């Protein structure tokens, strides 16, 4: 147990980790925006009147929730280029896998939020002459989103953690850079400790804020 921890060799390579962090943040931002907005669309699709739209949305949600996201990323990376004449970069494959997976999860969150709004709200909006879309945009969604902010934040944290999977297809993100530094300096223990600490430092304040938010919302409801 008397191992001498040596973090100096990690900090000497701080720029490599900084490049990785940049890649992580970029992937996170894209997947967060795509995942959430697509999720809202799918949630609306599950409530559509047209049966094919409803079935397609349900199928999408079920499929992406019931398969591992790593399999999805690898499928997009290795399998999709065979099917369609497209070049898939590691970045693209990671975006596709993580965004679609998060879309399926956030669709369920949006659906739950929309369903939780009392029927009286719909009826009242209709009574003053609003159309379905107007009601959704002006009355239902603003209230629903407020209620689901904690769940959506949790989803965001999950997305941030998921970005590490992009290292499997060699996209340059924090963990991938950590692997590189560890293989150059033979110090995996220190490197992975630092990488884990970085994730903790970034995500823990968000997690704490969510706890507080949940408590505040619970009190105001």
């Amino acid at each position, binding site marked *: *147990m008397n*191992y001498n921890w040596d973090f100096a060799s990690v900090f000497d390579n701080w720029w490599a980790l900084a490049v990785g962090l940049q890649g992580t943040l970029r992937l996170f931002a894209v997947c967060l925006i795509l995942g959430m907005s697509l999720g809202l669309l799918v949630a609306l699709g599950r409530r559509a009147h047209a049966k094919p739209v409803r079935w397609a949305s349900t199928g999408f949600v*079920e*499929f992406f929730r*019931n*398969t*591992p*996201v*790593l*399999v*999805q990323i*690898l*499928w997009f990376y*290795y*399998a999709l280029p*065979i*099917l369609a004449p497209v070049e898939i970069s590691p970045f693209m494959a990671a975006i596709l896998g993580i965004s679609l997976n998060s879309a399926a999860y956030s669709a369920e969150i949006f659906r739950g939020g929309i369903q939780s709004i009392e029927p009286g709200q719909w009826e009242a909006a209709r009574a003053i002459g609003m159309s379905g879309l107007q009601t959704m945009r002006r009355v239902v969604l603003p209230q629903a989103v407020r209620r689901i902010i904690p769940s959506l934040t949790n989803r965001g*944290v999950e997305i941030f*953690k*998921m*970005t*590490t*999977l992009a*290292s*499997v297809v060699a996209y340059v993100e924090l*963990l991938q850079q*950590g*692997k590189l530094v*560890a293989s150059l300096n033979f110090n*995996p*223990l*220190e490197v*992975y*400790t630092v*990488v*884990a600490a970085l*994730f*903790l430092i970034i*995500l*823990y304040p968000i*997690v704490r804020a969510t706890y507080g938010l949940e408590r505040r919302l619970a009190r105001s409801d």
Partner: protein
Amino acid sequence: MYEWNFAPVFAESGLLLAGFRNTLILTATALSGGLVVGLLLAFARLSHRRWLRLPADLVIEVFRTTPPLVQLFWFYFGLPIVLSVEMTPFMAAGLTFTIQSGAFFAEIFRAGIVSIEKGQWESAKAIGMGHNQLMRRIILPQAVKRMFPSMMERSIELMKTTTLVATVSYADLLFQANELAQKTFRPLEVYTVVALIYFVSISCVSFFAARLEKRFARTGEFSV
């Protein structure tokens, strides 16, 4: 137009089956370990003693807020250096996912225990039960029923998370798929089949979980 050909994949189906078996073994190991660790962590977190509560808080928060893949790498590449032991991929993965799912289970247990009404605690104490007795006979049986849906969800998450071990070359279903894709030059068919295997097995689990939930709901006492 690409011509699908599943024959080479099915010719090697033994490889995938062996991988699926390993996936199930790892899931079962981490699940049973994780439930025990989770229950202990939950008790520690609810304890009045600070020296029990603080370490439990730390473990739970660290394992919930860092990515599982980083944890796996830490246990596989880092931990053997500190302990100077050999770590097999299975051991590293079993350890990582036991503690990781334990951290999540702990929060589920805690929420379930806290959700039991005060009167239950008070009446158990009033008829002279000790803390352990009332926990085992009164609180936990009711709490477990309420926790069931979140438990199932977590277990399914765990099964999906086990795919990460493919990166430290434990021969799970995904790892075998990578091998097979290289061997047959048919990544499209291989990954499609593997995605379907996961989809079907996980859907089956969710289906039975939903049915059990309904049965529990009928016997009452089932809402959080």
